[in-house]
């Protein structure tokens, strides 16, 4: 358990360097290096661990992050539409986390200047859970949370 945690932190450390480089403008999205997949972030279990792996700390709650086209109840957890729109100035990236999934992080979208701070996709949810929309703007992290309930389907109709 400890060993695993240390590995996660190590991977997170590497990711931090990458994120710092990217934030400092050394890497541009689309560069070969920017394609690196942040293993540490995707293996993290909680919001705090994910933020850490993405190179930040303690995200601030923000009212400038909105969920769009995201229902309160999902008829099937295999496909839950999630849309996130940020009006935090200088939004650079948007991440979607499902709190109760085995690994919280579902996706990170890096948005170069000129791309609007709004994305939508569909995620799997193992059970009813909080969804976190995590925004990085001007190097700082912000978060908004919404609960989505997952129902069981009928017999197959």
């Amino acid at each position, binding site marked *: 358990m400890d060993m695993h945690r240390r590995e996660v932190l190590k991977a997170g450390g590497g990711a931090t360097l990458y994120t710092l480089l990217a934030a400092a403008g050394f890497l541009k999205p689309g560069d070969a290096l920017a394609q690196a997949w942040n293993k540490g972030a995707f293996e993290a279990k909680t919001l705090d661990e994910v933020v850490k792996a993405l190179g930040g700390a303690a995200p601030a709650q923000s009212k400038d992050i909105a969920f769009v*086209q*995201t*229902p*309160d*109840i*999902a*008829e*099937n957890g*295999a*496909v*839950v*539409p999630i*849309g996130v729109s940020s009006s935090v100035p200088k939004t650079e990236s948007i991440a979607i986390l499902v709190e109760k999934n085995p690994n919280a992080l579902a996706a990170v979208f890096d948005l170069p200047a000129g791309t609007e701070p709004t994305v*939508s996709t569909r995620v799997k949810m193992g059970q009813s859970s909080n969804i976190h929309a995590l925004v990085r703007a001007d190097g700082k992290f912000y978060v908004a949370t919404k609960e989505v309930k997952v*129902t*069981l*389907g*009928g*017999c*197959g*109709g």
Partner: protein
Amino acid sequence: MSKSPLRVRARGILLSAATALAVGAAFAQTSAVDEIAKYRSALQEGNPAELWEARGEGLWKTPRGPNKVTFEKCDLGLGPGVVKGAYAQLPRYFADADRVMDLETRLVWCMVKLQGFTEADAKKNPFGGPNRKSDIEALVAFITSESRGVKMNVAGTHPKEDEAYRIGEKMFFFRGGPHDFACATCHAEDSKRIRLQDLPNLVKQAGAQKAYTTWPAYRVSQGELRSFQWRLYDCFRQQRFPELEFTSDASIALTMFLAKNANGAAFDAPAIKR
């Protein structure tokens, strides 16, 4: 013992508490239904059925089988190679086969007669799963998409079409299996539900139209596009009936009954469902 006023009052309180509970439940249910409607509308933004449609279009135009020919001579009822609007008039009687056929049956027929597949090969993978995509389901997705917006117009006038319709109707109401079930057990009354799913009343025109015109569908729970043959196959499984054989006369008869009942409504599939 005479009734004391206290007792009567207690009963009155119980009654109003029950009423309040019922009202509360109805309210909760309505808002849940609204939220589910929101979920369904959010899914409409992108339907993975399009991936099947694209693959099906490719299959339709690709020379296949031992004879290495395309489907362009395959007559779906409106002439060789005509796809636009064809599904809205199926099932129908085909003189060349002397049989009433639905879309899947006709595709199998074309694969055998034109492309030279054996019947067993043509029918081998009717319903896809992970890592075994079904060509039939892809073709069905493409062909049905070419009837989107077209009004359902199943003739049912040929004696064999009429016969199929009547057999289909009988099957719909036929009770059997270990649960003594019929299609009608779930689908012949208004306002029936299983958990949160409303069950369409298929003996009323509006219910039949809404249900039939939204199949095939991308089934979110399975991550697959499902054809109408699959829909009936799975209804039979759920009723614990004997397996409904792919492209059997029984499957075509039931399709005929349901398709004709949907006449007049604009076809609106492939859809996306939970």
